[in-house]
């Protein structure tokens, strides 16, 4: 179907390109502002073409002992620990649900499905967390809400159901236990879907501040997202960030610093972008078009 592009095609390409640019423009603006000299911001406002660049904001937020650095650490630990455990829990359960020899896998799936449909709401969830001692500790950031998600379970289960049963059968004839079959045959074969789920969990952990706002009051445990939220509302904390080392008499470059903190929060996402594009989107498409 070859045809010569006409005026309509030109408009079409222009429209799509414009939308695409609009989608990333705010991020570009934030990045530029984070590298802009504070005086230039005060004088000209935010802009894509600052008259003077500066690395000062980054030097400030990354100086030793800064709360941004600390929160970065908290977010990394929470994300990595949480994601690893979450993927393991999900993959193991999915194996059993996809195992056709398990007679009660239907009711088992229903058991997980019910909690997806009926949720008791925030307050009962909060009271359960408190009862379990998930308050003001690292576990409070990792365990509640994010450690297991039935949607991901069904995604992995559906994938594993596509693996031929004959593999399980021959493994069991060769004397492999179910656990051995799961870990040395099913999980390696499920790497694409496990990659998807890893990114789902990982992104959810990295972007989470719900657990923090509900269960953590201790500033030392603030994950990066929550620190960012606090920074916005509490001008006071911007002063705290300096901790005197940058010279107490100077006014902090608050505008560029805020944006720099936002930019470093997005940093890991940009680094993982190729993988996100490959696995994250495909998982969502499969989940919603076929699920």
């Amino acid at each position: 179907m070859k045809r010569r592009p006409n005026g309509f095609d030109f408009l079409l390409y222009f429209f799509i390109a414009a939308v695409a640019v609009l989608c990333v423009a705010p991020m570009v603006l934030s990045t530029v502002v984070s590298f802009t000299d504070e005086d230039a911001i005060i004088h000209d406002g935010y802009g894509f073409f600052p008259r003077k660049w500066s690395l000062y904001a980054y030097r400030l937020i990354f100086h030793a002992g800064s709360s941004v650095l600390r929160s970065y650490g908290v977010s990394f630990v929470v994300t990595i620990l949480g994601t690893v455990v979450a993927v393991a829990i999900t993959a193991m359960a999915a194996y059993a649900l996809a195992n056709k020899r398990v007679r009660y896998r239907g009711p088992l799936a229903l058991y997980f499905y019910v909690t997806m449909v009926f949720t008791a709401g925030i307050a009962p969830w909060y009271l359960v967390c408190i009862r379990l001692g998930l308050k003001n500790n690292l576990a409070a950031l990792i365990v509640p809400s994010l450690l297991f998600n039935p949607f991901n379970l069904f995604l992995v289960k559906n994938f594993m159901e596509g693996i031929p049963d004959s593999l399980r059968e021959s493994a069991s004839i060769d004397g492999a236990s179910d656990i051995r079959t799961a870990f040395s045959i099913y999980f390696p074969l499920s790497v694409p879907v496990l990659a998807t789920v890893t990114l789902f969990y990982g992104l959810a952990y990295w972007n989470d501040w719900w657990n923090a706002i509900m269960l953590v009051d201790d500033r030392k445990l603030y994950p990066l997202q929550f620190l960012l939220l606090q920074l916005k509302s509490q001008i006071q904390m911007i002063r705290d960030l300096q901790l005197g080392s940058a010279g107490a008499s100077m006014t902090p470059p608050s505008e560029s610093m805020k944006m720099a903190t936002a930019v470093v929060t997005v940093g890991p996402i940009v680094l993982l972008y190729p993988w996100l594009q490959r696995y994250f989107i495909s998982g969502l498409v499969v989940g919603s078009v076929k699920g």
Partner: protein
Amino acid sequence: MKKTDDEKRRGGQNPRGKRNGGHAPEGKPGKGGLVADMRRNGASYLLTLPAAVYTFVFGYLTYPYLLIAFQRFNYRRNILNGEWIGMKNFEFFINSSYAFTITWNTLKLNMFFIGATTVAALVLALALNEVRVKWFVKASQAMMVFPTYLSWVVVSYMLYGIFSMDYGILNRTLAAFGVPAVNWYIKADVWPAILTVMRVWKGAGLNAVIFLAAMAAIDVSLYEAAEIDGASRAQRAWRITMPLIAPTVAILTLMAIGRIMYGDFGMIYALIGDNGVLFPTTDVIDTYVYRALRKIGDPAEATAIGLFQSAIGFVLVYGANKLTKRFFPEGAIY
């Protein structure tokens, strides 16, 4: 649900074990009760244990706490011997003038979000579907889904970059035309529109990609036949593409309607926060419940509102599903 039925049927028509005579075939469930099955497939049950325990604790264990909606809450008492006060918590909420405001805001904002995102995503997907240059589609998709990955907190900073009174790009642009600076963060009427735009910005790209995937599954011969019959591009899009992706659109919309009584706390709180000036148009049930729980410290009241929310939500999903069933039978959830 449908899937398991299909499997059962397939299993019934095509019993795999028949050929190997008497001995129980592999890959077929054994007989007996749960205990017998657990003994047989102990390892499989063991593998589900962590997920099952987690679901029990954070799912099923939360249900009994719903009872405190009918109690005066006291941290020192347990659920069963609490002080029962009947429907007082509900009455308190429903009689407050604020109940209507936040319920209406929740519904209104979600309707804006669902409508605008669906339309924008459809337009984008139809546009992308017309493009034949592969790299262009790929590159623009990669840019359009970028906002999906951001947290609302990060988005709130970007929003601030646009709407900030002193330095925001919008006021600076207006100033270039001689319009005096506007403090957008005290203008309650414009925020439903701003929130809707941000929602579309963050979500339409991803939805467009999903719709595009549904469009890619359409049989090409339909388009070829239509072209031979002299259908224009617009006609092909309108008469072939649209009806064929309608079920996908219906499913996504229905899932969104299912959550129409649930305000997006992550979004509203990150963008509005505790800025009370904007509450009349932007405060939703979930932000209110958050304040009832964390700022006022009344779990009973918070639970009651949550229950009220689920009840109305359930009625709405039920109704939406009925409507979908009538118009797009394939799109209905149950």
